[in-house]
């Protein structure tokens, strides 16, 4: 078959089946972005953000062998794990990793002067946003789910049969499921926010810091305002409450009870709304590398 016939055939197919075309474009975008962003040396500090608690727990397991491994210690370690997930991963680790991953999806291509290649192919810009968002989400979720899983395993494996019993016969598996769910939702929520920021601001770091502040103080605002915060939804899904007093207690306030179902749907709705905003914003985007 000649090249012209191939072109005509390919164009006919994509004209007749636009949704399949969008699907295949998203999968190509995801593949390219994951390859470009996941396995690169410049992303090492994101791996560090994800696996720093794993290293700390590993050190704890290795160097504190003589510490008691009874029920009290197991309860204590459960609280420690809850603190790691709620205070470190949700507030810092995932937040900063998503800032790096998702703002780089568009802004990074502007810096590297390669975004025009994405704008010169027959891809709707909305599809570009969705493809890049999925790629960022896959990278962030894969990294942090692995890290949370590793933390959980290391935390309970040292308790031997008591740990096994806690995990499989007690609340352990349920807690793990909740941690994996909040981790994934945090990646989606923060990811959508930072993707939109990268389309709104030349330097998304400052607005990122503002968002971090907002996420911290949102609990003292009225309930309707709290719903504009990612952590509002995540807190309702965390399985273990933290007994924290003092200024840090602000991070653990749960204002107004919300069912887990509503929390998940609320966060997904927030994510989709921010993505829709990004789809609108990308239509205004121009390739002006000299202005970067």
């Amino acid at each position, binding site marked *: 078959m000649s*090249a*012209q016939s*191939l*072109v005509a*055939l*390919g*164009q006919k*197919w*994509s004209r007749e089946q*636009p949704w399949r*075309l969008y699907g*295949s*474009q998203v999968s*190509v*975008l995801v593949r*390219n972005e994951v390859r*470009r962003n996941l396995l*690169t040396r410049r992303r090492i500090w994101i791996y560090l953000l994800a696996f720093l608690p794993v290293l700390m727990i590993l050190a704890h397991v290795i160097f504190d062998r003589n510490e008691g491994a009874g029920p009290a210690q197991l309860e204590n370690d459960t609280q420690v794990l809850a603190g790691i997930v709620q205070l470190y991963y949700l507030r810092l680790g995932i937040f900063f990793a998503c800032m790096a991953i998702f703002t780089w999806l568009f802004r990074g291509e502007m810096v*590297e*002067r*390669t975004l*025009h*290649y994405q*704008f*010169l*192919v*027959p*891809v*709707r*810009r909305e599809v570009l946003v969705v493809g890049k968002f999925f790629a960022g989400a896959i990278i962030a979720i894969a990294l942090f789910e692995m890290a949370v899983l590793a933390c959980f395993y290391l935390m309970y494996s040292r308790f031997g049969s008591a740990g096994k019993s806690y995990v499989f016969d007690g609340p352990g598996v349920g807690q793990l499921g909740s941690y994996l769910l909040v981790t994934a939702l945090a990646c989606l929520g923060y990811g959508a926010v930072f993707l939109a920021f990268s389309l709104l601001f030349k330097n998304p770091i400052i607005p990122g810091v503002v968002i971090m502040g907002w996420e911290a103080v949102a609990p003292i605002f009225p309930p309707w305002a709290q719903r504009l915060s990612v952590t509002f939804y995540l807190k309702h899904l965390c399985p273990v409450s933290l007994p924290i007093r003092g200024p840090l207690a602000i991070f653990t306030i749960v204002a107004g009870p919300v069912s887990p179902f509503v929390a998940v749907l609320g966060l997904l709705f927030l994510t989709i709304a921010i993505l829709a905003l990004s789809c609108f914003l990308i239509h205004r985007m*121009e*390739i*002006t*590398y000299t*202005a970067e």
Partner: protein
Amino acid sequence: MTPSAGQIVFENVSKFYGEVLGVNKVSFSLEPGITSLVGPNGSGKTTLMNLLTGLIKPSQGAIYVLGLTPQQPIEFFRQVGYCTQFDSFPPGTNGYDFIYWPLRLHGFGGDQSAKLTNEALERAGMAQVAQRKVAGYSKGMRQRIRLAQAIAHHPSVLILDEPLNGLDPMARAESIALFEAIAKQGMHVIISSHILEEVDRISDRVVWMSSGYVVAEGQIREVRKEVRDHPMQILVRCSNAARLAAAAFELDHVVEAKILNDGHGVLVRTRDAEQFYLLLNKIVSGGLVEVDAVAPADDDVNSIYQYLIGSDGGPT
């Protein structure tokens, strides 16, 4: 102007970067064939190309390419290929992937994309080095791999920003032959180039730009006729140069008739070339002068560039 399915149309297009003028009130339409954009640095050539492909948006006015706009990206970019001047590539990519993956985004399957990639690499003379990282390419190779990407999906409109930059003479000749072949198939090829001799040779029409304005556009000889401030120069190689020069001087519209140093020709500057050619016919038919060759000496891109824009057509 009404957007036509076969034309590229600029309708009163202006682009401002804040208070800085990119292009101003550009209106023209282009038929298929090779069109060259010519002008000095900052004249707005790249801005015009970026506007054409939707990389930037006009502050006012509208642009249609074969009746389409970049707001319809799926149809638009099937028809358009743009080889930009940005000399940057996705990190770590090799020549093959650089062409293959964009084709996948067009919706072509793996086998189709591979076939089209190989064909584009062959056409651009890059098949031998396709598996090498683009970062290791010479400037000319990077230019050609971008060209290969722009032509891989067989676009109807090919836009090339300084496509001959960095190419050696052989590659330059091959590229020009490729552009001519594409234009012969009834397609649009829009080129910006500062190599005016080659622009002159290959262009069906030229758009001369200066400071964001289109100062002239059309076929080279037609535009030359319109530049009335500068008399046309006609070189006549003949046997009796003194006789021809004397006859030419009798015409009001001839402002200069200079006998060449070798004595076998005259360079005539006239405000009415048609009248001069009539005189020449008369002299030749009267047997007074034997003419070997007659050729316009300044109806080329470079001369018009100098007359309209006021500098030599150096690097743009």
